[in-house]
Every structure is written in structure tokens, then in C-alpha cells.
């Protein structure tokens, strides 16, 4: 069993499964830095998963699926932003309400458009294909883990790197961090707080949309009811664990994805599947605890 833990198939699955969480987590990291507690991320992921499926189905083209997914992610973000930034609603309440309506909404649309319940499978839904990187396959162990992954997985890696650079090396990133640090100071620096909160929301929307696209179009080419199954929440906690740092958030995602991959691998063993499936959630809680161990000594009064 120990061999299974670090087998090529588990690690390769980890990389594959990390992509959607990582994309959403990097998006959430931008929200986190701008001090927007966006629990509605789950709804972004679910909605864009559906629209990505639809887009791919309509055009029989995975790329159009991505476009649909990203646009729907941005639209969801716009809804969230309108309520939270302009209508001054409580972000948590809005997030919860959006999550619930997204579930009902996607299921309704699924019924309206595909006339099925539970899940959609259609040959017209096209996934992204895997990419073989020329030199990577020569490297023995790592090559077989990293190579031949889905295009979206590589996109996710790219996004993590770009996000890290944008966050720390550009005026845009500086301003996002500033908004979260001290809004009044931001105002007096002549930078519109609202504008950059919106900007961070748009980034979150785009990336969460891409994350949603990963779910149906990363090979399985199907959409199921409530498909996100907490991926958005995982992403939010990853961003919190990483304190809004894209790279650190990504590392947290890898841990979650590893737990996910394990639960796939462990199903062959005699461990009950229900327990195995709880692994990602339990591990998320554990990681949150571990990263907060420092709080134990600090008596926060």
C-alpha cells in the first residue's frame, strides 16, 4: 500500500486532479489579497463547469467550452461583485445563496437543454486532449508523472507562474495587495479601491471559470449534477492556507489533489469507499490545522 502512495499513477493523478483546484485557488488568492472573502467560488466552478460542457457541446470544440466556462465564471463574479461591492451585502450570505442557486440553476438548465437528469454524456462534448512534451518523456520518473497530461493541466501550471509574477512584480499586483492591506491608504494614494476589488473579482472569475472547465473537459467529457463537489471550497481554503500567495496556495492544492488521487487509488483495497472519499475533506481540515499550529502558542485574547 505504501508503494501506492508514491506510485507513478497516484502522482500523475495528483497532477491531473490538482489543475481545477489550482486554477480556482490562484483566482481565490487574488480575492484573498484584496480582502474579499468569496465563499461563492464553489458556484463559479459549478456554473462554469456546466457552461463549458454546453459550449463544447454546441461547437463540438473544447476551446469553445473554455470560452463559455470563463465567460460564465466572469458573469458569476459580476453578480457577486454587484451584490457585495455595490449593494453592500454580506459576502458570506451572498456566497452561500449563490452556491445554492448555482446547484439548482445548473440542474435546471441541464434538464432544459439536455433533457436529462443526473448527468450529461454526449459524443458532441469534446474534451481537451493530452499533450506530449518532446523532451520531458526522456526524464525517467518525473517524465512519466508530468508528461502526457491534459492541456488544461499545463495551462494551470502556467497560470500559477504568471499569477505569481503578476502579484509581486507588476503595479497591478502591488495595487491588489494594497487594497487588501489598507483601503483608506489606497484611496489617498489616488487608486480606486472599487476598481481593484473588481479587478481581483474578474481575475477570480476568469480563473474559476477555467477551473470549472477542467471538470468536464479534462478527459471525461461529461457533466454531472453538483459536479464541483466542494472543489471551490477547497480552493478557498487553499488560498487561505497560502495567505493569498499563488505559489503557496498551489502547494496546498497539490496536497488536496494528492488526497484525491489516493482516494481513487485506494478504492481497489479493502478500505470502504466512503471513508476513502472523505480523505480530501479531512485532509483539508488537517492542513488548515497544521498551518495554524503557530496560533496554539499565541494566546489570542
Amino acid at each position, binding site marked *: 500500500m505504501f508503494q501506492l502512495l508514491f506510485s507513478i499513477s497516484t502522482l500523475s493523478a495528483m497532477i491531473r486532479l490538482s489543475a481545477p483546484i489550482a486554477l480556482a485557488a490562484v483566482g481565490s488568492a487574488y480575492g484573498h489579497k484584496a480582502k474579499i472573502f468569496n465563499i461563492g467560488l464553489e458556484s463559479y466552478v459549478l456554473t462554469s463547469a456546466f457552461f463549458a460542457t454546453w459550449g463544447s457541446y454546441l461547437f463540438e470544440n473544447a476551446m469553445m467550452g473554455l470560452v463559455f466556462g470563463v465567460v460564465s465564471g466572469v458573469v458569476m463574479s459580476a453578480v457577486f461583485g454587484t451584490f457585495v461591492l455595490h449593494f453592500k451585502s454580506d459576502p458570506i450570505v451572498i456566497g452561500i445563496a449563490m452556491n445554492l442557486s448555482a446547484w439548482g440553476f445548473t440542474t*435546471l438548465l441541464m434538464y432544459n437543454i439536455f433533457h436529462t437528469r443526473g448527468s450529461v454524456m454526449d459524443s458532441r462534448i469534446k474534451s481537451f486532449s493530452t499533450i506530449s512534451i518532446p523532451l520531458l518523456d526522456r526524464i525517467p520518473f518525473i517524465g512519466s508523472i508530468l508528461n502526457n497530461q491534459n492541456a488544461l493541466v499545463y495551462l494551470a501550471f502556467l497560470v500559477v507562474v504568471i499569477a505569481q509574477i503578476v502579484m509581486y512584480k507588476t503595479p497591478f499586483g502591488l495595487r491588489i495587495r494594497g487594497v487588501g492591506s489598507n483601503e483608506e491608504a489606497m484611496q489617498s494614494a489616488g487608486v480606486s479601491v472599487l476598481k481593484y476589488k473588481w479587478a481581483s473579482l474578474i481575475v477570480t472569475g476568469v480563473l474559476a471559470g477555467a477551473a470549472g472547465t477542467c471538470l468536464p473537459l479534462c478527459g471525461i467529457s461529461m457533466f454531472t449534477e453538483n459536479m464541483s463537489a466542494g472543489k471551490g471550497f477547497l480552493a478557498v481554503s487553499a488560498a487561505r492556507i497560502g495567505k493569498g500567495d499563488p505559489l503557496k496556495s498551489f502547494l496546498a492544492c497539490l496536497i488536496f489533489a494528492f488526497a484525491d488521487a489516493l482516494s481513487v487509488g485506494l478504492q481497489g483495497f479493502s478500505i470502504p469507499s466512503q471513508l476513502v472519499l472523505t480523505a480530501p475533506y479531512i485532509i483539508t481540515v488537517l492542513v488548515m490545522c497544521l498551518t495554524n499550529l503557530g*496560533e496554539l502558542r499565541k494566546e489570542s485574547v
Partner: protein
Amino acid sequence: MKKKINFKISQTTRLEILKYFVSALLVMAIGSVIILSQGNSPLEALKAMIAGSVGSPSAIGTTIRWATPSIITGIAAVVAFKSGIWNCGIEGQMYFGAFAAAIAGSAITLPRFLHIPVCLIIGGLAGMAFAFIPAILKLKLNVNELICTLMLNYAANLFTEYLVFKYMGFDASELADAIATPDMSQTARLSVIIPKTSATTAFFIAIGIAVIIYLLYRYTVKGYELKQVGENLRFSKYGGINYKRTFIMIFLLSGFISGVCGGTEMTGAFGKFRPAFATNLGWDGVMIASIAKNNPLAVILISIIWGMLKAGSFQMERTTSTNRLVVMVLQSVFVLLVAIDYEALFKHFKEKSQIRRLRIQKEEV
């Protein structure tokens, strides 16, 4: 002087009522659009909704049946939210409570007057025990309770399913429908108040819980402390409130009530535990609490409306083939609309028009 103040309050209440009214109208309009898009007549759907919720004794029974868990989970949410704790794990706590109550109902033999309370209390304690995890993590490690409870919800759903398997000795090949704990004995079942429906005396238990919590906040020192902790934690610590104990207490109380809700579902409508039985009941509570602005008595009112919507939605689906998820979408849209801070919105517009005026002034100069 006093009269003037009274007038002021009544005006804000009037505005508040107006806000709910307008939100309801908007929700109906959006609902009509969705129903139309499904190729059905909104009017027919509405008729079916009314028929299904209050149109007959059995319809009223269904309404009460669904209002009951809404009240209890709503109160569980109010207890937590009022003290500023985002316990979104009501659903998970409910699963544990329901499982424990179902086992207690089938495995123990007791006279009726004891059996039901024992089931409910065991359910409550199980919910409480599960709520203890996020509570202690928040207190000791400052783990965000919202995310923690969300994660634990998923875990609770899966874990209780596992427990059922373990308890019943099923293997994985079993059909999903068959997966359940044994039937609870009749001594552990609540009486039905409207024949041939699932409306049971659980409804009165639910109202009792709501009233007790209302009295707690209104008249007791503990209730005062709970409220202050929610509104200003620093002030409470400074004022000598043992916030750690209060904090744990709130979480446990909320968990206990959630567990009791699991218990009433078992002793009332269900009679045995099925995995994933509580489709969104916990979230209903969260929505209701936020609409009721954490007022325990308002929770009862909103929950009855919630029950009507749910009961009506079944009828609507049967007679007009409109998917009943429409109702769920509309419920959350209502939450969204009620969450709008109209006052802030108004101020914003005023400022905007001011800037515009200044610019016009400048151009004139």
C-alpha cells in the same frame, strides 16, 4: 419626544416590510421567466403551488412537514450567526444526530414517553459532538469555522453512510435504495397530527425550540452575553464575559439543535436513517436565518413560507412538469435580494448625483 421616536421606528419597520415585499415581487417575476423558459405557464404553476401547499388538509400537512425541519435548522443557524459564528455545518451535524437517533429508536426498547425524548437527546448530543470539532479547532488553532464546517459536511455525509454500512453489515454491491438503518420501533415515533401526511408533533417541538431561544435572548443573562459576543467580541471580553466558554457553548448549542433536527426527522417523517436523506435541509436553515435577520420568531414565519414553497413545488412538478428546483433557485434569489443594503445603495446614488452637479457647476463657471 417619545412619540417622535416611535414614529421613527415604525418608519424603518415600514421600509423593511416594503423591502421584503418588493423582493418577493421580484422573485415572482424572475420565477415566471424561468417557468416560461421551461415551456410552462407561470399561472398554472402558481395555482399548483397554492393547491399543493394549502389547498387540502394533506397539502397543509405537507407544508407543516417541511416547515418543521426548516424552523429547527433555522434556529440552529440563528444561534450561531447571532453570535457571529458561521456554523455552516448544520447539515453535517444533522446527519450525525439523525443517525444516532435512528439507532436509538431501533436498538433500545423504552416506553413511549421516554423513548422519544431519549432519541431526540441522543440525536442532539451526537450533533453536538460533531460540532465540537470545528469549535475546538477554531478556539485553539483559529481555523476558519466556515470552511471547516463546509468540509466536515461532505465528510459527515460520507461517514454516516459508512456507519450505516458498518452497522448493517452491507457490502458495496447493495442497491442504494436498500441502504438504511432498521425501522425505528413505534414507541420512538412521533404522532401524526394530520392523517395520511408526515406532519407530526415535531412541529410543536420545533416551535417550542424557537420560543425557548427567543426567551433566552430576551430575558436571560446568558442570552445577553451571547448577543454581545456576536456584536462586539472585544467588548465582551473586556466586560468579563468568558468568551471561550461562551464560544464553545454557542457552537455546541447550535450543533445540539441541528442534531435534534436530525432526531425529529427520524422520529417524525422518516422512521429510519438513509444516507444523504437531508437534501439541503441544513442550508435551508442558513437561508432562513439570514432572511429572518436572526430573529427566532421571524424564523417560524419564514419557515412556514418555506414549507409552503416546498410542498407546493412537489405539486407543481406533478401537475405542470415544472422542475421543482425552480423553487430552490428562487429561494436563494430571495436571500440575495433581501441581503441588499438599500440604505448604502441610496447614499451611493446621492453622492454620484452630487459629483455630477459639481461638474455641471464647473462647466457653467
